């Protein structure tokens, strides 16, 4: 028995892509011996770290459970001690000595070739270890089925646990190994020297460390530090021919079963008929069938290691291993992996929505996929909805007349069956004719319907909202908010000109809402075909909807508006005043509201009831001042009938940082 080498532990084992699976399996075995992969069979070419891994398992298992006994021995030691025991007549005593070993580590089992007696002994020992729930770990330079003349029962025993390989380390792992060696040996080399050594075609870790040792020796007798060119030159002189010529470490010979090598002398066919040819054929085919039929266990075990390594629950696969041959192991594996893929998608979306949710255990358990879907749904629903319609605009206050009949009819149709008739509805008209009033009025009416989530906002607010999301890296969250809505009402889409990123998002949102049959209403100062700086794909979609114009208010509308304002502000007013004001030549509702307000203000100042005479004096005595523009070309809905600012929420009080706008412009 060999003592465990104290230097060969997991923390000195450099893990790379070539050995990650094997190390994960080894750790799992060390942490719960006998419970996960039993036996664990590790195979790899010479010098790739099998012995290191076996000893690391022993150390770690003892560290986890100090009561445990771990025993490491090479196959030669196993054979010698067995022979010695048999010679001394102590065979039974020899067998008993393993009865208190919790974890047995057997190295180099490829030497079992043609040793029938030792194979039988190892088979017996393996069975004893397995039935008493104790761990056995074996290593070899080739997989069990390639060990010549190995008992089929042993092959099956090994296949029943986990057979896993370590391949040659990749470049990055070689650099990491050299760096660790340099650190341990306190040797200082220029990084380029280590990289040059790692880039040599050395396939085994042992050779790599040998090369490194030569460099240390060479460096010790020099005064100046070694350069990468010198290092290559030193190694080229001393390395084996295979490395000097740049040939890779020879791969294991391919499995040859009964074939004739082209160069080999061809044995003359001998008259056959002697021996049990069919029996021998049957025996070999039985082995082959057994290997293939049982190979699903290996595939499942590998999948367990892989997904455990990625922190997923693998109970479903473990249950598979515990049973007999399942109906379709590959389908079971496929289903499991599909569930993992779905979990990954769910977790990714949940992470975007709410970082706190992403860490939930359900996102790592394919058996709880439904729960994971529920958690994702909750995260989606936890989002605050986008801005809704302003309550100050009521649809019943919007005055219908013969001139705006088309708009009001369309609005009525939409309210009766949102998304079914006019989708999208595009309301166009000059500034101040009541587009915003109508839009928000419809928004309020839609929002009263059960289950409706209405987003109703101006284009500039829409842009600002997206910029904030981009700035905080929460675009997915922003999208998720809008994807919840069942109606989108967007005011002043002509202001989206040149906002490419916003247009792109709106385009996708549009498609999503259209596909789901959700209502969209847009307002614009110009017809869709005249929208400047708006992508054709978006423009044509707007054109394809119902485009209706909200005309300038006619006499009928003006009278109704004046009458309502006077009623609200001054109680009952004389009909002559209403008729006079309605007859004034104004183009927009907003200008009309301004006129009425001026007359009301004048009446207040002069302390008299507003009358037609007063109105004439005010309006004809001095020309009306032009309406004050407050925010560039964004005017709709900003002014109240009194001429003052109508609503604080319509104004941008917190201007976004200029840098945010630059992001949008650049995009």
């Amino acid at each position, binding site marked *: 028995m060999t003592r465990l080498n104290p230097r060969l532990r997991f923390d000195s084992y450099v893990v790379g892509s070539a050995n990650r699976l094997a190390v994960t399996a080894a750790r799992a075995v060390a942490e719960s011996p006998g419970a996960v992969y039993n036996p664990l069979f590790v195979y790899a070419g010479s010098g790739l770290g099998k012995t290191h891994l076996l000893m690391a398992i022993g150390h770690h298992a003892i560290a986890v459970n100090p009561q445990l006994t771990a025993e490491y021995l090479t196959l030669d030691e196993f054979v010698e001690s067995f022979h010695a025991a048999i010679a001394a007549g102590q065979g039974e005593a020899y067998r008993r000595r393993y009865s208190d070993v919790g974890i047995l580590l057997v190295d180099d089992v490829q030497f079992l070739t043609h040793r029938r007696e030792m194979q039988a002994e190892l088979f017996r020992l393996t069975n004893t270890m397995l039935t008493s729930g104790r761990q056995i770990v074996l290593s070899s330079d080739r997989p069990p089925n390639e060990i010549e003349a190995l008992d089929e029962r042993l092959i099956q025993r090994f296949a029943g646990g986990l057979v896993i390989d370590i391949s040659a380390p990749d470049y990055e792992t070689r650099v990491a190994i050299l760096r660790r060696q340099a650190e341990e040996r306190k040797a200082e080399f220029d990084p380029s020297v280590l990289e040059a050594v790692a880039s040599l075609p050395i396939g085994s870790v042992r050779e790599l460390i040998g090369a490194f040792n030569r460099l240390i020796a060479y460096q010790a007798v020099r005064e100046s530090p070694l350069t990468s060119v010198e290092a290559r030159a030193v190694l080229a002189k001393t390395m084996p021919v295979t490395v000097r010529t740049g040939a890779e470490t020879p791969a294991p010979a391919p499995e040859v*079963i*009964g*074939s*004739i090598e*082209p*160069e080999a002398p*061809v*044995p*003359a*066919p*001998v*008259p*056959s*008929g002697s021996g049990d*040819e*069919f029996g*021998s*054929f*049957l025996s*070999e*085919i*039985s082995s*082959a*069938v*057994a*290997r*293939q*039929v*049982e*190979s*699903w266990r290996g595939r499942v075990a590998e999948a367990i290691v892989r997904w455990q390594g990625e922190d997923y629950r693998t109970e479903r696969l473990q249950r598979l291993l515990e049973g*007999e*041959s*399942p*109906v*379709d*192991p*590959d389908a079971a594996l496929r289903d499991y992996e599909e569930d993992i893929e779905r979990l990954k998608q769910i977790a990714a979306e949940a992470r975007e929505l709410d970082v706190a949710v992403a860490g939930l255990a359900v996102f790592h358990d394919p058996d709880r996929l439904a729960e994971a879907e529920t958690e994702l749904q909750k995260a989606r629903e936890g989002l605050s909805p986008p801005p809704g319609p302003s309550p100050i605009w009521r649809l019943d206050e919007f005055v219908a007349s013969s001139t705006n009949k088309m708009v009001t009819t369309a609005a009525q149709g939409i309210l009766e069956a949102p998304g079914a008739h006019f989708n999208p509805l595009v309301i166009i008209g000059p500034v101040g004719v009541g587009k915003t009033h109508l839009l928000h009025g419809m928004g309020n009416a839609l929002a009263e319907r059960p289950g409706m989530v209405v987003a109703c906002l101006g284009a500039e607010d829409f842009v600002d909202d997206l910029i904030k999301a981009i700035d905080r890296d929460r675009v997915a969250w922003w999208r998720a908010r809008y994807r919840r809505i069942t109606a989108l009402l967007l005011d002043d889409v002509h202001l989206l000109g040149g906002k490419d990123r916003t247009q792109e998002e709106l385009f996708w949102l549009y498609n999503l809402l259209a596909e789901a049959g959700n209502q969209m209403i847009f307002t614009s100062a110009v017809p869709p075909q005249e929208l400047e700086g708006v992508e054709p794909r978006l423009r044509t979609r707007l054109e394809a909807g119902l485009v209706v114009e909200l005309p300038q208010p006619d006499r009928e509308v003006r009278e109704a508006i004046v009458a309502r304002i006077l009623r609200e502000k001054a109680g009952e007013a004389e009909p002559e005043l209403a008729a006079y004001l309605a007859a004034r030549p104004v183009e927009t509702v907003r200008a009309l509201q301004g006129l009425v307000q001026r007359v009301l203000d004048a009446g207040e100042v002069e302390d008299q009831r507003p009358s037609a005479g007063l109105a004439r004096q005010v309006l004809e005595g001095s020309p009306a001042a032009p309406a004050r523009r407050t925010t560039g070309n964004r005017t709709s809905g900003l002014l109240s009938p009194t001429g003052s600012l109508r609503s604080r929420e319509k104004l941008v009080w917190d201007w976004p940082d200029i840098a945010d706008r630059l992001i949008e412009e650049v995009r």
Partner: protein
Amino acid sequence: MSLVNFTTREITCKIVYYGPGRSGKTSNLQYIYGRVPESRRGRMVSLATQTDRTLFFDFLPLDLGVISGFTTRFQLYTVPGQVYYNATRKLVLQGADGVVFVADSQARRLEDNIESLQNLQANLLGQGVDVRSFPLVLQYNKQDLPADLILTPPDLDDALNFRGYRSFPGDALRGAGVFETLKGISEMVLKRLAATGSGAA
């Protein structure tokens, strides 16, 4: 066809012996038939002409018993070698899991071998089979004939085996190489299971 069926716990392998006329395909099957215990084999069906040439095909079912819980059956077929029976060859080739190409080692039959091998590849391609990954072995039969009449296995490899399949020298009449060939193709067919999963269809 179904290769390994986990539901019915059956493994069925269909192996077709292909090659030019008179190369020894039927002799292979007859030798196997003679070595298999009666309980393990079904009736060998052989449709031959009066001159003992295969007219349609030979069929030899082998029951290998229950292996690892799976009832394992091999079905061995030969095809008629004559050029004009291509429709029959296509039919027999359908659903094959592996093919043994039995070549006649006589130097004068080299052209026939090449023609038959090309015909095999064309028929496999016609069935949508990727010849590069399909289980196939070569048997160089009649290696017992005088050395000046035959080509050696390396020569035959050079001439026929450009894809590097496994090849076996053989003397089907006396049985040399017959079971080696069958083992070779069976191993390949079974090994393919591991690469393609269960293969149940």
